[in-house]
Structures are given as structure tokens and as C-alpha cells.
């Protein structure tokens, strides 16, 4: 029988008193900084270097056919999707708080809103749905760009744009799957305050993906050529 006091306390000894997984996820996020820096650098380096259109912020007339390609970026749609992703981060922190505070009695006189704040399922659902909403916007954006003549093969802008935003979208997709898994666990056995660390790690990843989008939104969409 193992009767070490470490197990009795439910954890192993660590030098810092912190959990290994949380250190690893921060190291991973540090690594991701370099990943997205490389992608963003390439996009910016190739900005204005495409030899054929369409271009992000300015219309382009094809000299051979005379066809006019409008400026490709759709700022209103992307502003909306940016808003959706920002709100998903809010839902995410509320989900984490709900898991951390699970089981704590509500103070007397609490209204429906205070009660809603205690539901981890609600906020995980919200986060997943908002994340999926962001992906839906991206799917719409990608298909409409392709219809307007911008493919990943078309020019440097297309290659670097679809790769950068596609990488970000893949990160969002992974995050939605991750959060969906947590949600499934919540339905299966209920997430407890002892699970808070698992939710926290997923949340750190999720917010990081949001933060990357904050940079992308400004650098790609709002700053013109």
C-alpha cells in the first residue's frame, strides 16, 4: 500500500509548489509566440509584394482581362467576428470562476444572474458556441474570398493570409474541441473545484488564441497598405 503523505495530500512534491501542467502550458504559449511571430512577420514582409491582385485594402484591375477586383477584406464582418471572440474570452473566465466556486453557497438575496454565474456548463457552452461562431465567420470569409478570386495559390497575399489566419483558425478549432471535451466531462461527472486546474489550462490556451487574434486584427485588417 502506498501511504506516502504526498498522496494523502493529493499531490506530489514540486519545487515551486505549482502544478507541472501549468508550467508546461506557459512554456507552450511562449513557444506559440514565436510560431505566430513567424507567421505575422511573413505576412507583413510580403505585404504589397504580390504581383497580381486581389489585394487586401485596394481594388485591382486585371490588365489582361480588364476585370476589376474589389479590395478583399471585409472589415464589418471581421469586426463582428473579433467581437465574438472577445466575448468568448469573457465566457471562458466565467466558466473557470464557476468551476472554482462550485459548491459554495450563494449569499442570501442572490438573483437569477448570480445563479447563472455559478453554472460551469452554461459558460462552457457559451465559450464553445462563441468559438464556433468565430469559426463560422472565418468559413464565410474564406469562401467569399475564394469566390472573389483570392485563393491560397493566387498570390503572396493569398498564401500568407490564408496560412496565417488558417493557423489561427486551427488553433481555435483545437480549443473548441478541448473545451467541448471539458463540457462532456462536466455532463458526465460534474467539474469540481479540484478540476479547476484543467479548466485553467484550457482557458490560458483559449485566451492566448484570443490575444493572437487581437494582434492579427490590427496588423492585417486595420492597417492599410
Amino acid at each position, binding site marked *: *500500500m502506498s501511504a*506516502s503523505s504526498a498522496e494523502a495530500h493529493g499531490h506530489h512534491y*514540486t*519545487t515551486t509548489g505549482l502544478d507541472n501542467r501549468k508550467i508546461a502550458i506557459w512554456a507552450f504559449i511562449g513557444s506559440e509566440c*514565436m510560431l505566430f511571430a*513567424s507567421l505575422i512577420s511573413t505576412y507583413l514582409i510580403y505585404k504589397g509584394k504580390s504581383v*497580381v491582385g486581389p489585394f487586401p485594402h485596394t481594388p485591382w484591375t486585371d490588365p489582361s482581362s480588364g476585370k476589376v477586383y474589389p479590395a478583399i477584406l471585409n472589415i464589418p464582418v471581421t469586426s463582428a467576428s473579433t467581437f465574438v471572440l472577445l466575448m468568448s474570452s469573457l465566457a471562458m473566465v466565467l466558466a473557470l470562476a464557476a468551476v472554482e466556486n462550485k459548491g459554495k453557497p450563494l449569499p442570501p438575496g442572490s438573483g437569477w444572474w448570480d445563479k447563472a454565474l455559478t453554472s460551469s456548463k452554461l459558460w462552457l457552452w457559451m465559450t464553445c458556441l462563441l468559438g464556433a461562431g468565430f469559426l463560422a465567420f472565418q468559413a464565410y470569409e474564406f469562401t467569399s474570398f475564394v469566390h472573389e478570386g483570392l485563393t491560397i495559390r493566387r498570390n503572396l497575399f493569398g498564401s500568407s493570409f490564408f496560412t496565417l489566419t488558417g493557423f489561427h483558425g486551427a488553433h481555435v478549432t483545437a480549443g473548441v474541441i478541448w473545451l467541448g471535451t471539458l463540457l462532456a466531462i462536466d455532463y458526465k461527472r460534474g467539474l469540481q473545484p479540484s478540476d479547476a486546474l484543467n479548466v485553467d489550462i484550457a482557458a490560458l490556451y483559449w485566451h492566448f488564441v484570443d490575444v493572437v487574434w487581437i494582434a492579427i486584427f490590427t496588423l492585417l485588417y486595420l492597417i492599410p497598405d
Partner: protein
Amino acid sequence: MDWLTTTDHKKIGTLYLHTSLFFFVLGGIEAILMRWQLMRPNGTVFTAEQFNQLFTMHGTTMVFLAVMPLSAAFFNYLIPLQIGARDVAFPRLNAFSYWVFVLGGIFITLPIFVWAAPDGGWFGYAPLSGRTYSPGPNMDFWVLGIQILGISSLAASFNFATTVINLRAPGMNMMRMPMFTWMSFVTQFLIILSFPVVTIALVFLQFDRFFGTTFYQISAGADPLLWQHLFWIFGHPEVYILILPAFGLVSEVLPTNSKKPLFGYPVMAYSGILIGFLGFGVWAHHMFAVGMGPIADTVFGLTTMLIAIPTGVKIFNWIFTMWGGSIRFTAAMKFAIALIAMFTIGGISGITHSSPPSDLQQTDTYYIVAHFHYVLFGGAIMGIFAGIYHYFPKMYGRKMNESLGTVHFWLNLIAMNLTFFPMHFSGMLGMPRRIYTYDAGQGWETFNMISTIGAFLLAPATLIFVYNFFRSKKHGEVAGPNPWDAPTLEWSIPSPPPEYNFAKIPMVSSRYPLWDLTHPERTSEIPHTQSGWEDAKHQTGEHDMAPMHIETETKTAKELGIPMPSSTIKPFFVALGIVLMFAGLVFLPKGMHIPAFALMFGGSAMWIGFLYAWLTTPLEDHH
């Protein structure tokens, strides 16, 4: 089966060691074949195409499949032992890293046996490595293979960084860590920060090759320097990834065999950090010849000169460590001293190309080949040999044969200098790198002949080592827990260590905890405190720990009640799934859509399924 499912860092370390020694021999054979071709002018042993494959695979093999995983073997084996831990932070991730490495290694190596290997150099310069100029599957293997190996290195780096931060024994604060652990720790951050960059550069190349994107297509307006910049932002930290662990190993061997503490320990640690940090600001010195302009040339020339300072500091500290010590010339010690000498030569020739005008004369000549073989063979490989001779008794409980070790050492040292020293001259006489043959009458014949003789002599040297290695496992002189009278934690436990490493986690009060017990006079000038002990007691009680002691425990983990991670096959299948997924892409340009998609979807399903199974299974059986 036991080896397929193990999560024990020591077993994984041994696996890394054997696999990478195999690849080291393979990379060495490729080198010897090249030297055979270049022995005389107008050599006809190999065609130009075959020669391209040989030098590409020699570089790729030595960097990614030999030196890096040899270092990883020591990370695995030593880091937990040196910091007083029972395993790494994520034992299953560790197994995963190994399996990705070995499967990726097989993937990238197999094509050489049918002369279909990558042929665009280990640096894979785009657009040369793009579909237009490299239409065959050769570079597909390279771009996918390096991507796979990157996954292995990144997974391992998160693991070891976390291990060093979080699994140090009570009292083992940062400034008490053995220097090998310190240098490995810096290395992990170099991997964490540099590999994502090459991952992206490779993604672009993959997309260009497989999906027709335009990242490296000059006709579409692409900049031919993009790949070079991205690659060297990774590539320069990579050379420190190769050398720092070897620096760490000799920093263990030298004090032990000089019977003195390491000279200037804090400066050694800080200069390691500084090398790591500056390593990210020198990348463009690989590109002086492309014409980046005076500002970039000046900045990168200066940072390159700067980085020589912390490296020089290390050289002097090692010399001062030996100064006044009573030196014992074990085989390991000889290799460690050889590292100091050989690396200094390579370091000095390195400084000669930190100045752009001077570099323009040297770039792409054999002078560069001479330089980086002095730092990589003379540095990294010498350090790794020192580490193997030194730590073999810990791994197998027996010493390697010292006489054979001495023969190996001298033959290796002489052969190495015969091979690489003449390259300084052939390079200065203008012999370009990577040419498969050359005309007579340019003054290169003698130097090439000497280089080839040296390379041929490296083969018997390595054979002697391999023989010694395998023979000593069974017949070597039995070593006790601490055959070299060394000062650090890994020597306070039996050789080979039990599966749990430490029956009681040692509570450390100085930098050389074992010498505190055996040779207190050697550590009298080093601060001794019990910092960190209180926190440890506060966390878990003292139950599992004991003040610094020598362990002779031979009980099993079960008898001692130590929870051990259970064996699992899942990391292997996750790794296999990932490699199959990448392998599917190779069939795509051939129009073989059925095997391509079968492998890609099958592989993806495999790794995702096994990853879920892995993450939902607890690490330890709770009995």
C-alpha cells in the same frame, strides 16, 4: 514489449543513446563515402546526384538524428538524477518524444538506401528546395521528416523545462544545479523558441510543394531571402542546442577528475544564459554574402563577436578548474580536455568569419566546413564521448575499458585533426563546399588526400568505441555507486539506479552535496544553507525525504510504496499515427490519392484516438 511501453526516463535515455549512436555511425558512413569520392580530383565513385544526397543526409543525420538525440539521451538519463527527482515531469510525453524521434528518423533515412534521399542540403534553401527545382519526392522526405523531428524536440523541451523548474529536490535551488542540468535547461528554451520558427518555414515549403502556394516562388514576387532568414533564426540557436549540452557534460567531468569545484560556477551559468540569449541575435551572419546592407552586416557582425565572450569565459573557467587540481586522466577526462582545445580552434576560426569582409572570402568554402566540424566534432562529439565514458558506469553498473578508451581517444583526436585541419587550407585556396568533384592543378589534391585519410581513420576509432561500449556492458569492471568520486546527486544512488531513483528524496544544502559527505574540505568555501527545506516540509511533510545521504536501497518501488508511472503503449501509437499522417503526403504529388488519403486520415484517427485514451488514463495505477 517492455521497451515499447516504458515510461522510465532511464530506459528512454538508454533507447535514445542506442538509436542515436546507430544514426551517428550511419552519418559517419555517409561522410566517409563523400571523402572517398573527394580523395582524388575527378572522382567517379558517385554521381553528382548521389553526392548531393550524401552531404544532405550526412548533415541532417548528424544534426537531427545523432547529436541532438545523443544530448537528449543525457537529458533523459541525467536531469532527473541530477536534480533528485524520480522521473521527468511528464513521463508519457517523454516516451512520445522518443517514438516520434525514432519513427521520424526512419522516415527521413530510408530513402538513402534507394538513392531517393533529400538532396538540397541540411539547410534546404528555398526556392531551390521548392517543387520547381526539386521535383522528385526527395525533398518531400526532408521537409516532412524535419517537421516530424521538430515535434519530438518541442515535446521534449516542454517536458525538460518543466522538470528542471519544478522537480528539483528540496534545497536544490537554481544556483546549486549541476552545470549539465543548467546547460540543458538553457537548451530547452532555445528549442522552445527556435523550433516554432523552422516549423513555420517548413509549413510554407510544404504548402508550396504540395498545395501550390507562392511563399518561395520568385515569379510571384516572393523574396528568396525569406527562407534563409527564417531558417537561420532557427539554425543559429540550433548550433547552441548542439553544443551547450556537451559543454554541460564536460563541466561535470572536469571538476570530478580535477578533484576541485567548478571554477566560477555562477559565471558559467550566466554565460550559458547569455549564449542562449545572444544566440537569437546573430542569425544573419550565415547570410553576409547575400548583401543585406551595412547596418545589418554591422549589427550581426558585432553580436557575433559579442557571443564569443561568454564562450571564451567558459573555456577559461574550465582551464582554471583544472589549474591546481590533482588531475586524473580517465578516458572521459581526455575527451573533455580535447573539447577545450578543439572547440577553441573552432571558436577562433568562427571569429574570423564574424567580420563580413573576411567572411565573404570564406563563405561557401571548405574553411567553413573546417570551422563547424571543429566546433561540432571537436566540441559536441568530444563532449558527448566524455559524457558516455563518464556516465556509462552509472547506466550499466560497469566501467568502459579505459585502455580501449585511450586508444579510441588518441585515434579519434588524430583522425579528426587529419580530416578537418587541411580543410582550412583547401578552403582558403578556394575549394567550394558541396562540390562532388574538382579538377586537378588547383593545389587542393594533397589537402583532400589528407582529409580522406583522416576520415578513413575515424572509422576504426569509432569501431573501437562501439566494441568497447557493447563489450563493457557485460564484461566491464564492476563499478560501485560512485566510481569517479563525483560530487553530484546522481552518484549517491546505486549503479544502475533503481526504477524509482531515490528511495528518499535527498535534501540538499550545497552545490556539491556528495562531496559534503565524502570530501568536506573540497566544498568548505561554498555556501551551505537549508533554503527550501521548510517549504518542502510544509508541502508534504518530511515522510518521503531525508537529509543528504548515500543510498544503498535495493527494494522495489512497490516494497517502498513509491508510486511509479505505469507502462503504456499509447504514446507509441500517437507517435506512429503522426508519422503515418505525414507519410501520406509523400504520395500526394504522385497522384496516388488512395494511399495518400488512407495514410493521412488513418494516421490522424490513430493519433487523435490514442491521445484521447492517453489523456483520460491516469499516469499511475492507484492500488
